């Protein structure tokens, strides 16, 4: 059980929040557990869930690549909850566990990823491991493959999801839906 108990679905009466939770459940990321914990602060929950959904599913960077990045970050944050979730849309679009494993492992040497994809994976990897290495030269390299708008999209996605993963990790939810390695 998480350190903060989630609200029961029936306790969440705000229709906007309920609709956002349903969207999360359809996507599978997050499932309803994290939203029902956030729902203890409904205005925060609405803002954060909307931002999580938009940053993950909208924009001009491939959703499957973002899903690999999200799982890589969750493993980095040591959060079994978010690491165990999978985007139903990404999986329906062809993402598989082998690609996820490759993105979380030695992606630099993997033939599976393009140079652009490696830059995105590196961006997430280095952001919290070694932020000092994400400097002007790093951004210059990224700009060879991504527009500034896409870099902001990736950066904000990484920052928001990693922040929520660290928070969730501390809640020690301990109900990992069998992380697929």
């Amino acid at each position, binding site marked *: 059980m998480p350190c903060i108990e989630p609200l029961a679905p029936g306790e969440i009466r705000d229709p906007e929040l309920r609709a956002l939770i349903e969207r999360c459940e359809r996507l599978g990321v997050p499932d309803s557990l994290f939203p029902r914990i956030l729902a203890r602060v409904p205005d925060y929950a609405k803002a954060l869930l909307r931002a999580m959904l938009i940053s993950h599913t909208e924009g001009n960077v491939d959703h499957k690549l973002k899903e690999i990045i999200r799982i890589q970050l969750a493993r980095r944050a040591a959060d079994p909850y978010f690491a165990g979730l999978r985007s139903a849309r990404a999986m329906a679009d062809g993402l598989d566990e082998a690609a996820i494993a490759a993105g979380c492992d030695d992606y630099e040497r993997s033939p599976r990823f393009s140079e652009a994809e490696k830059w995105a994976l590196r961006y997430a990897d280095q952001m919290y491991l070694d932020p000092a290495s994400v400097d002007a030269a790093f951004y210059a390299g990224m700009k060879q493959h991504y527009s500034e708008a896409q870099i902001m999209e990736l*950066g904000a996605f990484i920052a928001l999801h*990693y922040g929520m993963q660290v928070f969730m990790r*501390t809640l020690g939810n301990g109900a990992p839906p069998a992380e697929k390695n």
Partner: protein
Amino acid sequence: MATDPAAVGQEFYAGLRRYYSAAEIVELGSFIGFNLGFHTFFGTLKFYPMFAPDGRLVNQQESARIYGDAPASLVGAGRG
């Protein structure tokens, strides 16, 4: 949460609950998580406040000189 998330477990939350409601703890935790994620990202972008402490609008080079390349050290923070 920022420096030792493994230390923020059941016992830590039990301590927090003596002073804060569940809603307040979620408010704090999500606020901290959000800031933890974004400040690291912002730090890589190297941007500085638009205004000097005296209220003047300054360019980024001058602002970097005023505010410094790195925030003040946190060494010693949190040690009772």
